């Protein structure tokens, strides 16, 4: 059976290659980079190449810095940001700024605003001394015992209310 089919095919005349211009379907490439060259490169539009032209400074403007820049020291600060003045060793504890040079104090609001936790992170040194001082300050301010959790391993203190601004003001006053 199979041999008969093969024979019948061999008897057929040779298939003529079709005209590509008529039969070719349009192909859409996913991007400019992955598309094939269309025609000879000589047919492409002419262009000139400039190695580091005077306009290159405008390109350099658009390249972001690879790391977060260290802020220069200024005489006056008009925003609510101030640089860290406290050096390690001044207090028994030290609080490092975040990578963006901000205070590592965060407020998390969950359970539709019912659960508010204030985090102080990046604490090194005597974390218990800081917890005692902060807790005494906040208890005096709020006239009640503010819930506190000290995580010595990860250098983190969590308060069980929204005391974000109180903690931030206290830390900035200390120079952190």
């Amino acid at each position: 059976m199979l041999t008969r089919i093969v024979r019948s095919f061999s008897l057929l005349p040779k298939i003529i290659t079709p005209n590509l211009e008529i039969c070719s379907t349009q192909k859409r490439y996913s991007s400019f980079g992955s598309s094939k060259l269309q025609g000879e490169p000589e047919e492409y539009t002419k262009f000139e190449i400039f190695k580091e032209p005077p306009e290159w400074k405008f390109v350099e403007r658009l390249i972001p810095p690879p790391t977060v820049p260290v802020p220069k020291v200024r005489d006056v600060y008009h925003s609510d940001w101030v640089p860290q003045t406290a050096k390690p060793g001044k207090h028994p504890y030290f609080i490092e700024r975040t990578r963006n040079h901000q205070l590592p104090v965060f407020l998390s609001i969950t359970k539709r605003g019912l659960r508010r936790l204030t985090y102080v992170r990046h604490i090194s040194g005597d974390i218990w001394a800081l917890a005692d001082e902060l807790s005494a300050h906040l208890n005096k301010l709020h006239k009640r015992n503010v819930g506190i959790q000290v995580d010595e391993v990860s250098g983190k203190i969590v308060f069980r209310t929204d005391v974000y601004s109180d903690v931030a003001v206290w830390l900035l006053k200390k120079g952190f």
Partner: protein
Amino acid sequence: MSGIGRTASEKALLMLRSLPRLCMQNVGPNPHAKKVRNSRHRGQHGGDKHGCGNKGSGQRQNWMRLGYETGNTPFYLRFPHEPYYKGHHLRRQYPPLSLMQLQKMIETDRLDTSKPIDLAALCNTGIWKFTPELLQYGVNLTAEGANEFKAKVNIEVQWATEPVIAAIERNGGVITTSFYDFDSLWIMRDPVKFFMRGEAIPRRMLPPEDAILFYTGAENRGYLADPEKVSWERLVLSQKYGYELPKIEDDPEYEMLCERKDPRQLFYGLEPGWVVNIKDKTILKPLDPEVKEFYKT
């Protein structure tokens, strides 16, 4: 202008001049030309329905109550709504950035005030970002912290209000509001990524119809406004808010403060149609006059 001594045809023509143009709506029979038969039919037609039809409320003279829509919920009982947010999913958004945040970015050296600040510079800080796929068309500079704002900047934003413009111009700065089309927004968000693709910088499209008025307005410092009108509005605003307008001409950073983009330009100093090669530090500029003409217009 009395009609004394005029012929009837002249009067008619005079009247015709003040009348609306003749059309199908105006054409109709003369009054009382049509005879309306009020009485009942007579003779062999006396036993007919007398114009009241066969069956239904017409024949029985028990018409529906006023407002009844035969089974539909009547218009006065339908769910009342006032579609303020109609088409909100198609409207342009401008995520906010306050003047206080801008001041903070400048003081933490995230932004360089010795160069003009635009959308690309803001995105390159890594702190502020926007998502074009949510139809966010750039930055809305808000007035929070306007009193404390003390930086001299040449800033280009997409939306700004009067107090913001006043706060920036009071400190000797310059503000422009400019529009970026959807495709340009992606490029402004990450210019380096765009250069890596090896494509020619496209030309910026003009704002849509509903944004034209904002971006051509000198009071909004629009990028399509007349520069002379803008300088006049600067003076007007300084008098309204009561501050002395600093002279930009005498400023040592005059060159920087005068840097502006062409309405077709995406980046400062780089023309549309150029290809930037970051790796080899080269710029490829087209030579074909037709291509040049295309990118210019």
